[in-house]
């Protein structure tokens, strides 16, 4: 999908020239091992670099510059992937070809250089008032999860099944770890980005490969990543005997979140078979869970499963009447059981193959999705193509699906509901 070049040791450039889009997308992804403290520092640093820099020392000046560049989108973002934290800088700008007499792509490169290499420092430190406010913004972002009941319930489930583990650490860390951040730690983390983090740079659009490579080399001087960041010591999860937790908030709907574990992960040979297995169980609107929980029993508006392949976890989510928790869990258990018994129709298998294929091919219609998919799948194979991957699904049999279903084990049921549901426990 992408042509790749090494700009320095640990710094790679991936380019995909295409006439498909009217814009050019650029993405820098800095990667290092995930810990809750570092996640917080990186989330706050992203906000600080988004606010101002040496050339545009006020946010208004910086924003106006972006508006002038035809509303170029330029934003930092922090996410996680498996046991890594990803600090990214994304930009999307109009291709010069669609504007009369303008040359903005070069200006965007120069602006990207500024935001990465020229932070807004006073005596070698970030402005204290900026640090204080951006810490507060990240704290509020963490707290706002409470207001989104689905996200909150999912996070509570993860904290219960995988405490102190990358699966439950969020890309913002916690309120406590954000509060503890110092100016020095932020400076040090910025230095890590420039010298230590693994860096992948993506460019998608109507571009000339050689030109992009030269622009990268002339605008940015990336140093070899000789020093490696130490991996955190794995803290084994405290094992809990608890299998069920019901929590109460003032709300109307019951949010049912069930976790299952499987030894099959993204890196397993059977990964493509598990993608199909999850699809048949609950990935689509023809799947067993949707057909039975929603269409047959009218118990839910949404009811689905998702496969978190980097952690070997499968989640089933459903929004139900708070009195129907036990009935819903039994019905969902039943769907996995019939798959384990081999009750999988040709129709279901073929529908799921078609839908997964369509989903992956469709992703090619968004530049950002091209970057995200390749960024993940290149870990398995640098010459990944959508066609090759689709081929892995085509010959999968019902028996293989049944074998996969047998590796899936229910681990925990989390239920968040209003007071009404509690009375009927």
């Amino acid at each position: 999908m992408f042509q790749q070049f090494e700009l320095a040791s640990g710094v790679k450039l991936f380019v995909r020239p295409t006439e498909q889009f009217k814009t050019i997308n650029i993405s820098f992804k800095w990667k290092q091992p995930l810990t809750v403290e570092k996640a917080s520092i990186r989330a706050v640093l992203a906000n600080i670099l988004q606010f101002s820099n040496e050339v545009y020392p006020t946010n208004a000046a910086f924003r106006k510059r972006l508006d002038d560049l035809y509303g170029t989108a330029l934003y930092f973002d922090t996410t996680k992937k498996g046991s890594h934290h990803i600090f990214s800088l994304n930009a999307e700008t109009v291709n010069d070809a669609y504007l009369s007499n303008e040359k903005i792509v070069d200006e965007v490169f120069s602006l990207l250089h500024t935001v990465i290499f020229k932070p807004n420092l006073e005596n070698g430190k970030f402005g204290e008032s900026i640090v204080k406010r951006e810490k507060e913004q990240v704290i509020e972002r963490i707290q706002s999860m409470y207001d989104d009941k689905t996200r909150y319930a999912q996070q509570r489930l993860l904290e219960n099944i995988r405490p102190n583990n990358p699966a439950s650490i969020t890309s913002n860390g916690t309120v406590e770890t954000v509060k503890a951040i110092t100016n020095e730690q932020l400076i040090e983390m910025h230095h890590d980005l420039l010298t230590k983090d693994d860096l992948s740079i993506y460019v998608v659009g109507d571009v000339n490969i050689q030109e992009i490579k030269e622009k990268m080399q002339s605008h940015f001087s990336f140093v070899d990543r000789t020093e490696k960041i130490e991996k955190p010591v794995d803290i084994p999860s405290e094992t809990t005997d608890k299998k069920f937790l019901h929590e109460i908030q003032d709300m109307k709907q019951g949010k049912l979140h069930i976790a299952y574990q499987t030894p099959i992960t993204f890196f397993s040979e059977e990964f493509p078979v598990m993608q199909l297995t999850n699809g048949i169980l609950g990935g689509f609107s023809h799947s067993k869970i949707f057909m039975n929980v929603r269409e047959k029993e009218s118990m839910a508006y949404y009811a689905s499963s998702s496969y978190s392949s980097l952690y070997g976890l499968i989640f089933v989510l459903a929004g139900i009447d708070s009195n129907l928790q036990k009935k819903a869990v039994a019905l969902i258990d039943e769907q996995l059981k019939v798959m384990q018994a081999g009750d999988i129709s040709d129709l279901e298998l073929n529908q799921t193959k078609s839908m997964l294929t369509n989903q992956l091919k469709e992703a090619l219609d968004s530049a950002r999705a091209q970057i995200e998919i390749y960024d993940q799948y290149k870990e398995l194979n640098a010459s990944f193509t959508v066609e090759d991957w689709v081929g892995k699904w085509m010959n999968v049999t019902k028996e293989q699906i049944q074998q996969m279903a047998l590796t899936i084990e229910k681990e925990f049921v989390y239920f968040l509901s209003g007071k009404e549901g509690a009375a009927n426990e």
Partner: protein
Amino acid sequence: MNKTYFQQLEETLYNETLPNGLDVYILPKRGFSKTFVTFTTKYGSIDREFIPLGKDEPVIVPDGIAHFLEHKMFEKEEGDVFQKFSEKGASANAFTSFTRTAYLFSSTDHVLDNTKTLLDFVQQPYFTEQTVEKEKGIIGQEITMYDDQPDWRLYFGTIENMYKEHPVKIDIAGTIDTISHITAEHLYECYNTFYHPSNMVLFVVGAVDPEEMMDFIKADQAAKTFEEPQEIKRFYPEEQKAVDKKERTLQMDVQKPKVLFGIKASNTDISGDEMLNYELAMQVAIEMIFGRSSAFYQEIYENGWIDESYSADFSMEQGYGFTMIGSDTVNPTELTEKIKETIKNYASNWNVEDEDLQRIVRKKIGFFLRALNSIEYIANQFTRYSFNDMNLFDVVPALEKLTMDQVKAAFQSLIDDNAHTVFTILPYEKSNE
């Protein structure tokens, strides 16, 4: 088949109005893998009072019926339509808004088969009392889900504050009570009135051969029989200029207060170029005064009165419209006072340079060109524009021609204090902790 080339955008649009009245548009996109097709009727939650096809007297139908009908279209005697789409690798969906109901799919393969499925399932209704009853549980859970979303409650609470009579104030899905009265007979009455091809638009965008697709659609429609097209008579109540309620507060289980400042639009009985120019002028005015590069934004951000949830938008359809500015904030009163003060200041002193206008116009053009990478955006927006007699591809030239006088005139409609309202969501008092 008409063919229009938009030189600056390098896009070619094909279109034809079929004998049964259906407007068909096809936009091929170079390099794309998928095809996205939307089939939309100009019928939404605000269409609650109308004269049914073949009758003389107006009726009022239960709230939430357009959305209920959307759900029920997917169930047929032989089963669920999703099953059929899945077999051909198409992701199908539908949505109901205040003014539209859209059915859609996207697929990278079997595009003609999937188009046939789309046309057939939307044009062959099947409702029974039994299937209608079954859906009430599912939609009941959908309504409950939205009831638990503070941002949805905030948005609707603000609209309810603004409108006294107009049905835009009624939740699109209705309530558990209103949907309990819906019958199969109601659904047929609404279906027959609003799903006539002459009230609908079919939009095809992506990897498509325009001639082949147009021939396929024409053959399909020619093989089906429809009543003669008739003008649909819809009734909307008179709405006062002033807001209905100046201020309301709701308590929910949230961490931080949320506030929206709403401004009811005064000039909404427009369409075509007039609407396009007014809407763009209003959006530019809002962006200039309340956008992220404005002095207002810098001040409230540095004061810590807003967070990442901040937004300032204008939206309208024929008959209603509103500006909404707000954020999650621990200082809801300071924030809304500052909004009022800012409007007053600009009203007495229009402190805006030509350079500011040019900058915002450039930003809007860039945003539009980025949006044209999304075939979903094109299909949905094109249909909305077409129902209001506007053309989506006129946006860039209209922005380039926009004058300071137009922007200033649009801003004038924000000044009247009677059109202002505030809705706030507050956390529960922590009295028993």
